[in-house]
């Protein structure tokens, strides 16, 4: 077995030091009837590198990779071009195979990177402080609601209709067990997102927080300021959720519009689609006084015994390994490697690159919206959007999406798949257009759609 360095003579020598006749004798605390003396039956034996690679390639080839199709899927996960430099650097063994930086003197690489990452996220979100990352956007969103409950000592979260349904589902799962109340509703398909109704709901209740996705799951964008004002007037926190960080290269930041907690999915930068994970939860607060209620790891600046600047994990008295059942969260990790990919990609882009990338995404999305609006029977829902918008078809979008897949067009995400219980949404199709789609791809999508719904 190529990964196991011990030889049989090593094993014999070591057993004699221990004073045991064989390895089985080291398992004497296991009752005899529960100890397996032989490998478990029905499972294959070890395989060569070549054999494993062949097996995995066969499985990989059964999938239609986004790069082999005209591709327009979004709804919480986005395909962007990741520079080769990003993947090269994250595969350096010193990053890839390091553990959590519990020994800061020999983990400054990871720690400085996390400090830079936190600083970038805080700026992108218009916040004071960001943490060292969470599992993904959906779990970060629940943690934000949980945190708002601790801050306000209330337990009603009002969710805007445009919050990603998987996020809503995650929140509902958790709230079932913690006793929090969740008020949510399916999208109204109003171009303005029903913000007036949301504000009325805030005013009629005593919420701990209001959760608004920006841009929302249908691609709509709103000014968060009036929502923040309404929430603050009721003593509630505004939580803004962003699933497409590239959008913040073009759009005002949630923090500057008054969001108290900003969370999101960082997958767009550096991480890749990966069929849903691992992704990168981002979490930031506008007011530094809320830092001690934040979940997750934090990296902070300090000095060493010689006065040199250095970085350490800090404020860990909030965390499970110190506070156990009184911790702010049970989270015990971050998405370190994904955060590294994110921060390298964002460093390569820089502000100028991020703005150019965002502008190109928006330009192509406008081209696509205009072209799709010309397809007979298709209506574009949104007046405003970033790189994602919703179209309404004259028919259920689900079979159309499946049909287009056979034509090598991955056309987007149908609202029927996201909201199977909401019949009135079944004609909706969410289209995401990033820099990876060419104008030719857009034409391919439009003509395939035309044929499919004719």
């Amino acid at each position, binding site marked *: 077995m190529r990964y196991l360095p011990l030889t049989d003579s090593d094993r014999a020598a070591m057993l004699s030091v221990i004073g045991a006749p064989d390895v089985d004798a080291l398992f004497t605390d296991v009752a005899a009837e529960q100890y397996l003396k032989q490998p478990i039956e029905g499972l294959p034996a070890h395989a060569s590198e070549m054999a494993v690679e062949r097996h995995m390639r066969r499985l990989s080839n059964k999938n239609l990779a986004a790069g082999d199709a005209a591709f327009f899927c979004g709804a919480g996960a986005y395909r962007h071009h990741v520079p080769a430099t990003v993947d090269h650097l994250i595969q350096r063994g010193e990053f890839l195979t390091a553990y959590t930086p519990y020994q800061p003197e020999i983990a400054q690489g990871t720690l400085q990177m996390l400090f830079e990452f936190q600083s970038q996220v805080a700026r992108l979100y218009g916040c004071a402080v960001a943490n060292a990352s969470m599992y993904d956007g959906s779990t970060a969103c629940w943690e934000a609601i949980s945190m708002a409950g601790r801050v306000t000592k209330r337990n009603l979260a009002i969710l805007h209709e445009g919050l990603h349904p998987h996020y809503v589902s995650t929140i509902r799962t958790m709230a079932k067990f913690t006793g929090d109340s969740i008020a949510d509703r399916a999208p109204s398909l109003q171009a303005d997102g029903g913000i007036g109704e949301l504000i009325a709901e805030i005013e009629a209740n005593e919420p701990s927080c209001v959760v608004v996705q920006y841009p929302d799951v249908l691609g709509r964008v709103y000014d968060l300021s009036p929502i923040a004002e309404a929430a603050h007037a009721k003593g509630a926190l505004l939580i803004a959720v962003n699933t497409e960080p590239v959008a913040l290269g073009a759009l005002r930041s949630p923090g500057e519009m008054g969001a108290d907690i900003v969370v999101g999915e960082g997958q767009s930068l550096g991480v890749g689609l990966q069929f849903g994970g691992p992704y990168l939860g981002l979490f930031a607060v506008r007011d530094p006084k809320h830092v001690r209620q934040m979940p997750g790891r934090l990296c902070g600046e300090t000095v060493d015994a010689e006065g040199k600047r250095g970085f350490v994990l800090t404020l860990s008295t909030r965390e499970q390994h110190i506070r156990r059942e009184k911790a702010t969260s049970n989270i015990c990790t971050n998405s370190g490697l994904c955060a590294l990919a994110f921060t390298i990609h964002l460093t390569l882009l820089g502000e100028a690159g991020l703005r150019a990338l965002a502008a190109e995404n*928006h330009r192509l999305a406008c081209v696509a919206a205009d072209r799709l609006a010309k397809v007979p029977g298709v209506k574009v829902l949104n007046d405003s959007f970033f790189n994602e918008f919703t179209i309404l078809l004259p028919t259920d979008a689900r079979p159309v999406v*499946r049909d287009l897949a056979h034509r090598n067009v991955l056309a987007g995400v149908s609202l029927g798949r996201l909201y199977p219980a909401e019949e009135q949404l079944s004609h909706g199709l969410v289209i995401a257009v990033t820099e990876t789609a060419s104008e030719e791809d857009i034409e391919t999508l439009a003509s395939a759609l035309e044929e499919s719904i004719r």
Partner: protein
Amino acid sequence: MNAPNQSGWKPAMTPVSGHASQTVTGNRALMLEEPLIFEIGTTATTGVDLPTPVGGANRLGGLAREGEIGLPGLSEPETIRHYTRLSRQNYAIDLGLFPLGSCTMKHNPRLNEKVARMPGFLDVHPLQPVDTVRGALEVIDELAQWLITLTGMHGVAMTPKAGAHGELCGILCIRAALEARGDPREVILVPESAHGTNPATAAFAGYRVENIPATAEGRVDLAALKARIGPDVAGVMITNPNTCGLFERDMKAISDAVHAAGGYVYCDGANFNAIVGRVRPGDLGVDAMHINLHKTFSTPHGGGGPGSGPVVLSEALSPFAPLPFTTRRADGTVDLIEEENAGEEHPHTFGRMCAFHGQMGMFTRALAYILSHGADGLRQASGDAVLNANYLLRSLDDVLDAPFGASGPCMHEALFSDKGFAGGLTTLDLAKGMIDEGFHPMTMYFPLVVHGAMLVEPTETESKAGLDQLVLALRSLAERARAGDESLKTAPHFAPRRRLDETLAARKPVLAWEKPKAPAGEPTLNEQGGR
């Protein structure tokens, strides 16, 4: 000498110990100081070629971003240099032995990285039509079948994104099962030796946590547990092998007692790597157990994550597993069960724990690792991990106190304490001394039941020669600690940084870079128009 950049960053210029000379850059040959990206980048620099924005496409609803964000950019060569230099300040398993007990740092095969980057896994969207991702679903299903078989369980929830997230999943399954039978309960029992995530998880899921003490020999006190079990107890959370490095001999008796009282058994599977192919948790009466794929099946931890924590489930708990999951149809195709088609077939699922399907990138790596080992290799791996740990225990227990050294063989990790150290020296000092010897320190001060604990886990991917070198170093450090060697108090002496002031970091938190107040005439980030 001015700083080597225009941003105000000044390298520390401290004398090299034992020499009068110092360098003006702060660098020492191959040991290079590296400023922050905010100190060397500019908002005008980019390392990516993108089309210059043209035309007036603006349907942003009047929300176009104004003013500067303040994000520094670097060119491609500068970027590579920055992160390569940073990487050199890190210890990693690729550099040497990383004996973190209860964390498990073993070799990360590069085949796994290659496989995870195959386009059919890396470049597929979680919401593509199911017909276009059958191979990805087969990976999940194939891995699920291995996990079920190796643990002797009935089902598995694949979506949890880390070990602690898996704990939450298991506890939520228990809660859902109890509620389904109209028997909500309030208490989860947690042994005091448990990982801190266990009580945090139970509390986060709305339970009251009660501790169960350990016996003098480092195992759960069965009598105390039995005395506490009652109709208000939803379940117990037990780590097996436990955090003292010992197998819980009474696990089956504990399960039987909990089941008899109507509760469920959660096993923290963080240490499953010690028993793979030798003990099936299902045979011990476990109802739910998470498996840290990054520990047992070696997916790289990347400086803190991501992890992946699938949860194997007993027949009683399987119906409550969260969406989405895979199912193999009679014709051999693997289907995806999510909101759209869960319907009547899966009415008890407790919902969703996260967006999408869990850690696919970890699944491909774990499956490649499992296939590489096979059933025979996995069994050999757990045997070698346990052999290595016992070899360390016996090679050191004359110079380091082994509090449970008489409690039987240890599993994959050996536990020591700082008993016998002189001159006020502690576990921390010995750990920092290990850094100077070129090793990553072991886990310190855990488990909490042992004063000054040192939990050493060599893993199966260390050679005997490597272990012998570690033994040599630890024996020397232990002797110095017992002699009260003052110089250990200031270790490490040879690391890129000396001891860092963690108290200062917590007392005056600096968690993001702030633009320094620049002296007149010196431009800073955002004011430079390029370079």
